[in-house]
């Protein structure tokens, strides 16, 4: 039953991921042709919107992850195509921001003194009279 539920979540997440990517790329392509709106600018807007949606609906995590992974793909595609054109100070800021978040994650989540990764301890039993 649990495996079925997880598979269902995975499938729905995957569908949302694919459709959100398709929507972003098709819309950006259409807007750039019909209204001469910048293709990469439109993709950036979609990326930001997907991140915001993913954060807002974090409780439905399959849907949220679908949007967040789609945003990852859009951001990476944007960076891959335009990273060379970004001025060095902006590149420094982008990489610095990512480094700061990575350090925070490493500091908070992976500290071996914390019991985050250990199995939960059983509650104390009441004393036997």
């Amino acid at each position, binding site marked *: 039953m649990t495996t079925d539920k997880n598979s269902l979540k995975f499938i729905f997440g995957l569908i949302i991921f694919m459709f959100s990517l398709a929507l972003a790329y098709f819309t950006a392509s259409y807007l750039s042709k019909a209204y001469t709106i910048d293709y990469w600018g439109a993709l950036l807007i979609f990326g930001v919107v997907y991140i915001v949606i*993913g954060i807002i609906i*974090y409780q439905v*995590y399959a849907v*949220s*992850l679908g949007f*967040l*992974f789609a*945003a*990852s793909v859009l*951001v*990476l595609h944007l*960076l*891959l195509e335009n*990273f*060379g054109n970004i001025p*060095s*100070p902006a*590149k*420094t800021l*982008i*990489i*610095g921001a*990512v*480094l700061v*978040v*990575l*350090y925070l*994650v*490493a*500091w908070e*989540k*992976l*500290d*071996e*003194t914390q019991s*985050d*990764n250990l199995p939960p301890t059983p509650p104390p039993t009441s004393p036997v009279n």
Partner: protein
Amino acid sequence: MGIIAILFLWPFLIIALGLVFVAFGSLFNIGLAWLFIFLALILLFILISQQNNHHFASTKTRMTSWEELHVLREMVITMSISLLIPIFTRYLLDSFHKNLISVIAGLIIGFSLTTWGMFIKNNKVLMYSNIFGGSLTIIYVYVQLWELGSLARVIAAAFGLIAAVTISTIKLKEKLS
């Protein structure tokens, strides 16, 4: 909440690792970036299987997929930090047109992170990523120093000597006394 936070970490980790790839492609060429990703994947598989064997030798059980994911996450973070630090320093130097002050700032970053990594306890991710990232940064900055003349080389050599003596003294204090 912890599990949800860990799940939501993955999209960001993909961006971080992808940024390493993009920065490599921008600095060198896209072929080298693909080679890096290929080698990184092989290294990840080797390290995970090594961890699994180590785990089996100590507990006589194989790692669960959850534990494997934890190890993978640790390695992705370590790899991303240790490669992004020298790239960050490179762009920092570029932003200031490689003047002496920015090179000294790069040296301070490299030595500070390496020292921090050497003395950090109970966090292997920060330890390894700081040591590797800091060392790569120091190597990169020293290579850049060659073009800045003899004064810059003197400052860098003095800086390195002071850092090495300080670290050695602190690390070996117990053994020497």
